């Protein structure tokens, strides 16, 4: 597509439930990134996929968080046993891999854990 698409745009879930967030990057972009943004805060790096290389998972806050990227395109971020502190906007971005011109971000998924 023309931009990075994320779904759902909003998600309300009960504490303890699992959630899946989806990111559809720009076609042809080899690099895909997940960030988390808490209210009024900056962007916190979570995970980075580049082509067929092993992902950089150094930003995942706990083992409840995982992500996969199938076929080098769509990515899913999964949060198991959600906690209230997981409430945030989860942003996905993609780039051509060279890093030039930065990333293109999606509009994010606003996750609220109640």
């Amino acid at each position: 597509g023309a931009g990075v698409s994320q779904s759902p745009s909003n998600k309300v879930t009960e504490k303890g439930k699992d959630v899946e967030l989806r990111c559809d990057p720009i076609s042809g972009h080899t690099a895909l990134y997940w960030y988390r943004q808490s209210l009024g805060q900056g962007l916190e790096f979570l995970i980075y996929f580049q082509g067929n290389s092993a992902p950089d998972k150094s930003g995942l806050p706990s083992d409840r968080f995982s992500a996969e990227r199938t076929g080098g395109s769509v990515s899913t971020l999964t949060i198991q046993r959600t906690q209230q502190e997981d409430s945030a906007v989860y942003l996905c971005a993609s780039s051509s891999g060279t890093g030039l011109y930065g990333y293109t971000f999606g509009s994010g998924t606003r996750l609220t854990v109640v």
Partner: protein
Amino acid sequence: GESVGLHLPTLSVQEGDNSIINCAYSNSASDYFIWYKQESGKGPQFIIDIRSNMDKRQGQRVTVLLNKTVKHLSLQIAATQPGDSAVYFCAENMAPNNQGGKLIFGQGTELSVKP
């Protein structure tokens, strides 16, 4: 750990004035810097970037200045307009030759433009 931080969390300017948003970074190995604009309810939008071998780069109404000696980055917006009201983030990329790699973001500065 390494971080990118901003001097001012909020900035209020009069329409038509110039705005300057500052950013300090701590990683001297960073090779590539980007400014993003984020409007409410939207993802960050690329504004302008600069590589470490440059000290100034100009775009349409925006200029980025890089001072590697003091590890300082600034974004200048000329003739600020109400549509410029947003949160502005600086970010750095430490990947060699800008080959992908994660961006480290600062906390953001909220720019408010008064009509």
